[in-house]
């Protein structure tokens, strides 16, 4: 694809233009507040300061970041473990049935986040459907505390972002050349090793994309921790949200937001490198 070096840039141009206009410029506008002070009544007082960045260094925020990253990572891992076989099964289904299966995988998510979450509460709470079911089956002990736990938060996050991982993995699996898997079997690898050495590496870009979706959406989520976690857990997205809205401290919110964005982008770069290596991309070497 090197017959026209300008073409890739041309293709990227509209998207880049959109992002620059509607993301980079507005965000720089807001993130620049990080260098100013909060006004007494909220708002911004245009006096230059680095104090907001100093406040970001507070170990409290690092702790919250690490803790929510841990929850998001667990969520991501579980979502991938569930989504992969599902995506695989869809990609292997008769071709005319694949779009239908994909459609039904996302359909539940055209309802509404809040009411889906309430549905989970109805299922999980101490007086909820699952506990009632157990009771009607003869369980007599204390009702299970399924709700307001980390497990409930993770369940809710996995649930809501599962289809995104299925879509991303399906997208790479749907067109893997089956002969590659055959070649692996032929060379003596059983189904498991074929999966680990051929199928998985080749679908890794999709796994990585889906994983990134779950991770970034989870770490920024606040509805699920608030409702299913009983507000006992806090994701970093919430922290920034609080600065902007509750505390009305935009400069600090901007500093915290900037730190978060930079950290996450760095993490994503590291992840992208690792994925590229594991899935054997060699585009760079070629150029």
């Amino acid at each position, binding site marked *: 694809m090197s017959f026209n070096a300008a073409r890739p840039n041309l293709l990227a141009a509209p*998207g880049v233009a959109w992002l620059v206009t509607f993301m980079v410029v507005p965000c720089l506008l807001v993130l620049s507040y990080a260098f100013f002070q909060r006004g007494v009544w909220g708002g911004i007082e245009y006096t230059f300061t680095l104090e907001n960045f100093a406040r970001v260094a507070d170990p409290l925020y690092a702790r919250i970041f690490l803790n929510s990253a841990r929850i998001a990572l667990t969520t991501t891992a579980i979502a991938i473990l569930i989504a992969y076989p599902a995506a695989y099964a869809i990609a292997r289904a008769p071709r005319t049935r694949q779009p239908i299966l994909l459609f039904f995988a996302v359909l539940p998510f055209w309802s509404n986040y809040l009411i889906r979450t*309430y549905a989970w509460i109805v299922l999980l709470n101490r007086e909820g459907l699952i506990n009632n079911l157990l009771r009607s089956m003869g369980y007599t002990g204390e009702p299970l505390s399924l709700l307001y736990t980390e497990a409930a938060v993770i369940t809710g996050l996995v649930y809501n972002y599962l289809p995104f991982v299925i879509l991303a993995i399906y997208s790479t699996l749907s067109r893997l050349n*089956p002969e590659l898997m055959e070649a692996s079997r032929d060379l003596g690898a059983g189904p498991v090793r074929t999966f680990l050495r051929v199928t998985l590496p080749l679908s890794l870009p999709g796994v990585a994309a889906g994983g990134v979706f779950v991770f970034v959406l989870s770490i920024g989520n606040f509805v699920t921790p608030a409702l299913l976690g009983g507000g006992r857990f806090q994701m970093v997205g919430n922290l920034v949200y609080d600065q902007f809205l509750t505390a009305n401290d935009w400069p600090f919110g901007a500093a915290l937001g900037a730190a978060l964005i930079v950290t996450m982008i760095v993490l994503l770069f590291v992840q992208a490198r690792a994925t590229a290596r594991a899935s054997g991309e060699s585009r760079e070497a070629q150029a």
Partner: protein
Amino acid sequence: MTGNSATVTVADAPVAGRAGGAAAFRRTLPGRIVLLLVFGFLYLPIAVLVMLSFNDSGLPTAWSGFSTRWYSALLGNSDILRAAWNTLVVAIFATLVSTILGTLLALGMETRRRKSNGLEALAFAPMVIPDIVLAVALLTFFSRLGLTMGLHTIIVSHVVFDLAFVCSVVRARLKHFDFSIVEASRDLGASGWTTFWRVTFPVLLPSIVAGALLAFTLSVDEFIIAFFTAGAGRSSITLPMQIYSMIRFGITPEVNALATIVMGVSATALLISQWLNKEQVR
């Protein structure tokens, strides 16, 4: 959207490889069990939600008898219906624009000779920017420009993150893509544009559909950015905005009824279009 995605048929398999090929490995039973379990998980709360929409009581706790009163209430609630319609409009347009821009961006990025770290960061950024930062930023930006806000500004804003998600899905698919068919098309006299429509697009279609479904789903559920970039009138209230605003005085099962209808209608439309397709083929 229902109609849209319903009529899409995923184009046929790629590159070398024989159709019969995987047949020997296509052990359908485990596949079916996996799908059954996963779909069971996905639809478990949906079953609850549907059930609640027929619950006489407004409290989501106890079953107090079958009733369709929430459906009648819904039909009389023009606010919710209007919001649902607005949501559909936002999601459809945002999906359309972001699918196009995201796919092109993905193609551009994956066909470049050299990776550009700046471009990579730009494509990652919309996913990692906290919603509230983007929301505040866009509102500040729009009001500084003196724009009148409304559904169009919500759409513009949703495209920002939707496009990153679409781009990401399509890029994943492009990692091991055989570009020689693109070359073949150019060689046979097709311009870049024709090549895109006749070759690249159909072959990438499963990924593009996946990306579009993802964008649509994100848009349908997005709240904060929509709230901030909406205009100050009813005309740009979306369903999530409507539903969140109900939190303080209790979300009524009307919303469950609405969700039930949305999903029911979508599913029916899809199945009918599939059935029509099949009839045509015969």
